[in-house]
C-alpha cells in the first residue's frame, strides 16, 4: 500500500520533506507506520514522538485523511491504500 505522510517542524526536519511517500504492507496500522518510520529514520525520529524513558509514543493527534485520531487510543487503526497521514507535533501549551 502507498501512504502519504505529511509533517511539519521537527518531524519534517527529520524526514527531510513535508510530504513523504511510504510503501507499507497491507493491514499496516497507524502504530505500525510509526515503527516503519522509526526504523527508517532511527532515533532522530523516535525522539520526536516517544518518551525517552518509557519508550512509549506520547499523546498527540493524527489526521488520517480528514479524520482525527489519537495516539492514546488509536494506534491499532488500520491504514488503507492511498491514505494521507498528517502528524501533529506533540506539543504542550501555547
Amino acid at each position, binding site marked *: 500500500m502507498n501512504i502519504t505522510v505529511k509533517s*511539519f*517542524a*521537527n518531524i*519534517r*526536519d527529520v524526514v527531510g520533506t513535508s510530504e513523504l511517500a511510504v510503501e507499507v504492507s497491507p493491514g499496516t496500522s497507524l502504530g505500525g507506520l510509526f515503527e516503519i518510520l522509526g526504523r527508517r529514520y532511527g532515533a532522530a525520529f523516535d*525522539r*520526536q*514522538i*516517544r*518518551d*525517552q*524513558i*518509557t519508550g512509549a509514543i*506520547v*499523546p*498527540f*493527534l493524527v*489526521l488520517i485523511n*480528514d479524520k*482525527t*485520531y*489519537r*495516539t*492514546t*487510543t488509536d494506534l491499532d487503526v488500520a491504514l488503507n491504500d492511498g491514505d494521507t497521514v*498528517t502528524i*501533529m*507535533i*506533540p*506539543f*504542550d*501549551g*501555547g
Partner: protein
Amino acid sequence: MNRNDFRYKGYAGKLLRVNLTEGTWQDEPLTNELAERYIGGAGMAARILYNELQPGIEPFSSENKVIFLTGPVEGTMIPTASRIGLYAKSPLTNSFFHSSAGGHFAPELKFAGYDGIIFEGRARQPVYLFIDDGYIELRDASRFWGMDTRRVQLELFEELGSDELQIAAIGPAGEKLVRFACVICGCRALGRGGLGAVLGSKNVKAVAVRGQGSVEVPDMRKMKVFLDEIFARFSANPATSEILPRYGTPVLVHANNSLGLFGYKNWQDEFFPAAEGLSGDTMRKKIVKRDKSCFACPARCGKFSIIGEGPYEGVRNEGPEYEDIFSLGSMCGHNDIEVVAAAERLCDDLGVDAIETGVAIAFAMECCERGLLRREDTDGIDLKFGRAELIVPLVEKIALRTGKLGNLLAEGVRRASEILGNGSYHFAMHNKGLTFAGHSARGMPGFALGYATGPRGGSHHDGRPTGERTGLVPRETIEGKGEYTARINHLNIFTDSLIVCHLTESIWGPLDVADITVKCLNAATGMNMTLDEARTAAERIWNLIRAFAVREGYRREHDCLPPRFMEEPIPSGPSSGMVITRQMLDNLLDQYYEFRGWDKKTGIPTRDRLIQLGLEDIARDMERYR
C-alpha cells in the same frame, strides 16, 4: 547569603510593602498560613487582595493595589522556576487578575531577600523603586516618563551604575492608561489584564532589583535527587527536549491550523489557507537567529530574531510567540511574519499586550468591513483584513491613544463595542472583557468551558487546550468535561502559585495537580504536603478567586461565550461544523458547577464547599450575595 527565620525554605520570608502616597515602605513577614494554604504567586496574592481590596473599587483608583510576587521555587535550580507574577484588580475585567512572565526578574528579587512587593496608594509624581539587597529607595522617575520599556531599562542601568540589575517597567501605554497595558521585564511580558496601566495609574514607572543572596532549600541532597528526576523527564519528553527548543511556541501555527483550530479574521473562520507564511518553520528560516532560555530552564523556547530586509529591516525581538502570530497576523488576515515580529516588538516597547492589541485591530477591521466603523471613526484609515501594512501603525495609535480610533481601541474590545453600539458586540471576541487567545473554543468543548468560566475571561491559562488537542481526552465530547476542566483549573492555579511554566505542563500535570508537582513544592520548601492536600489547596485558591469575582458582580450569566462561538459553526477546514451552542454550554456549566459544589443557578460557591475548603470567612461573605 540571605538567612531568614521563616519556617519554610524556598521563600525569602518577607514582602516589601510600599505606600506610594506617603513615600514610605516596610518589610512584612510572610505568615505560615499564607504559605501553607495559598503556596505563593497567584494563591497568595489572591488572598492578600481579597482581604485588602474593598469590593467595587475603581481599578485606576488609589485604593487598588499591585503586587509583584514570586513562588517558593523561584531562584532554585528547578526547571522553569523563573517566573514573576503580577496581581491587581484588572481595568479590563474588573476582578482579580494574575499574569506571569519568565526571564530573570523573579530570582533576582528572591536573591535581594524578598518574595514580593505590594504597591499601595498613588505617588504624587513618577517614581521607580530600587531594591539593592537590603537597600530600598523610591526614586524620581520624571525624566523616564514617556520612555519606552527598552529605553528606560538602558537608562536605569546607566543611572544606577550597573547592568547587573533586573528591571520591570511600563511603557507609554501604561502611563496613558491603555486598559491592556503590560509590564516588560527584560524582553518578557507580564502581558495580560492591563496591570501595567494600574502601575501607571500609581505613577510607578519601574522596579529595579539587584540581589546577591541565594535561596535556601531544606535538604540539598534531597533536592539533587529531585533535580535528577525532573531534568530526566525534561530530557525524555519530546515537547521539552526537541520541539520547544527548536521551534518554540510558533510550532503551534501548523498544529492548530492543520486541525482547523486557528483563529482567522476575528474568528470568522478557524482555518487559514495561507498560514504557512506564519509558521514556526517559516519564522525559523526567515528571522530566528538563536534560542534563549529563562532562568533555570532547559527548554530554550525563546527565539531571538532579527528582520534582515524590507521595511522593518534591523528590528530585533525575542519572539514573536504563537499568541502574537495569532493576534497580530492570522486574526488580522495576513501572513507576513516580519510584520508580526515588528508589531510585537512595538507592543513590547510601548507596553501593550500583543494579544489584546491584535484582537482589537481585528475587531476594528471587521466593524469597518461591515460598515459599523466609518472613515470618520478611523481617522481616515481604510481598515480591511489582510492589509498587513496597517498593523504596525495601528499598534502605535492604540498604545499612544492617538486619534479617535486609537482611543477607542485602547479601551479594549468590550468597552469599544459598548461605545460603538449598533450590534458591534457580535464581533467583540472576549469573555469578561478579556479577548480570547489563539486557541479554539468551538473545536474543544472542555477548553470552551475553561474560557467561559475563567475568572480572567478569555485567558488560555485558566482552562488549557492541551488535553483535547493532544488526544489525552476525546476532543469532541461534552460529557465529563465539567470535571476535566475543573481539574485543569486546579493544575493551572497550583503551578501559578509555585510558580512554574505552563508550557511544560505535560511534566507538571497534565490533567490535574500531579505527584511530581507536589514533590517540587516539598523539595523547595520542606513542607511535606501530600497530593490530596495540594489538590485541596488548589481548589481553595480557585474558590477564593471565584469569591472575589462574585463580590464584583460576576455570576453564572457571565460564564459565557460570544454569539459567534455559540451561533456560527466553524465554516471551513478540518473542524468545520463544530460549534458550542447555548444548550451545550449550559450542559457544560451544569457539570462544572456540580463537580465544584457551586450553586447551579447563580454560580456562587456553596457554603458547605467553602467550609470544607477552610474558607469560613468567605462562606460568611458569600451569604450577602446569594
